[in-house]
């Protein structure tokens, strides 16, 4: 535990220095507080608006988690489907890539038309933004299964389904988890974008505070959104550590 804390300290140091620097810059009048609020003002805003902000955080978390869960399930399923043959890949993979290049901010109004204002639009937005890395990483993982091991499974008459579940899938797990780590952060971004247009949550807090020139509140909401993104990242990392620690170099100690 002590080692853990020592491990976190180097990452905290720049933050402390930065906070100290902005705080003194704003107090000395070097920076206008309506452009960049002092860290103490952000803390103040967090405290004063805690009920509203925590409520918004809860809503955003719900939508981001739901979108993330959907892209995990659908992304892995799509990747398994794409891995079934070269022909299938050639036919469908370009669409997956195309899907990724569509800017979510541009299709958010469409999502509102399809799903109405509220949670469903926000979930859809989180889903759209976060599914591609799951597909791409899972597919790469499944396709790069060691050919010698595929030979071994073939030698003992393993069916394609069995080879998928006992070989390709576990072998792809490190890549799948990498995809999920990226997707977690993107799901939060997707949810916030969705909320700008379609809903409540931190996205709409930011939107409203912006029109009211409440920069401190904007910062407070952004801070909470980042914390949410970090929490999702941490969740996937924890799962990754638990499943891979015994066998994969990326998670083994020392």
């Amino acid at each position: 535990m002590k080692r853990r804390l020592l491990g976190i300290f180097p990452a905290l140091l720049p933050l402390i220095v930065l906070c100290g620097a902005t705080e003194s810059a704003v107090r000395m009048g070097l920076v206008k507080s309506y452009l960049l609020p002092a860290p103490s003002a952000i803390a103040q805003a967090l405290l004063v608006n805690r009920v509203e902000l925590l409520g918004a955080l809860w809503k955003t978390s719900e939508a981001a988690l739901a979108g993330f869960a959907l892209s995990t399930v659908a992304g892995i399923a799509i990747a398994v489907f794409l891995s079934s043959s070269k022909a299938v890949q050639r036919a469908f993979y370009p669409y997956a890539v195309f899907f990724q290049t569509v800017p979510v901010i541009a299709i958010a109004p469409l999502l509102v038309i399809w799903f109405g204002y509220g949670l469903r639009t926000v979930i859809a937005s989180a889903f759209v933004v976060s599914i591609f890395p799951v597909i791409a990483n899972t597919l790469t993982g499944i396709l790069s299964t060691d050919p010698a091991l595929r030979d071994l499974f073939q030698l003992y008459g393993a069916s394609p389904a069995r080879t998928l579940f006992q070989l390709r899938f576990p072998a792809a797990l490190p890549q799948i988890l990498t995809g999920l780590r990226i997707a977690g952060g993107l799901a939060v971004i997707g949810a916030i974008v969705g909320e700008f247009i379609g809903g409540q949550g931190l996205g709409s807090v930011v939107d409203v505070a912006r029109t009211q020139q409440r920069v401190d509140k904007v910062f407070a909401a952004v801070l909470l959104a980042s914390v949410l993104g970090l929490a999702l990242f941490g969740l996937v990392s924890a799962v990754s550590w638990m499943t891979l620690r015994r066998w994969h170099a990326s998670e083994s100690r020392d």
Partner: protein
Amino acid sequence: MSESPVPTARGVAVSLEKVRKVYEPNRIVVEGMDLQVNAGEFLAILGPSGCGKSTLLRIIARLLEPDSGTLSITPDNPFQTAYVFQDAHLLPWRSVLDNAALPLELMGIDRTAREAKARAALALVGLMDTESLYPAQLSGGMKMRVSLARALATEPRLLLLDEPFAALDEVNRFHLDVALRQLWQWHGMTVIFVTHSISEAAFLANRAVVLTRRKCQIKLDRQLDLPLERYASFRTDPALAAEISHLLEAMEEE
């Protein structure tokens, strides 16, 4: 699996007739290959890198279809062939025991029976008390032993090895050579051993085949006139040195 009544007649006979394999585009790798391997023989296949040794071995294992020509194995039963690769190729998420038991698991043998057989195979290669370790915790030599145990667990009648110990240091390699030779003497399976190393081929085999660089033609097929019992001290035997120089001569002329 049915146990052969005569332990020394466990091996199968392998016959290749006019076997041809062409990779696209128009790369003839094997052409007009005729090779008869007797039941219970220990055959070493020597040849320059890229001449088609692995291709030949994969054809014999039925992992690859020849473009023409025939392969016959007598007697021809399912699951009688085992294949050992150049590197260990273990499943990193499985323990040593579960790795050794994998072929039996794929063949549908129940847990108790397959674990007993896997343990026996691990004991044969000198791996006791490691069954609950994971591959990441093993040295290169130990991994290769697990790989060998995995092949032996099914009590194969045909053991195919593709430069199995090439990645090991010499001490480990010499140990495993002796172990393999002993296993062959006890079990009497047919062994086809592909190697780059002339001295390893001569030390291990009863018969050696040298292939040409192009089209995988047999340029030397020699019965090695060496004693049955071969231990570490045999490495410096003059008779072995004589055989090595014979094979070396064949390898060098092009």
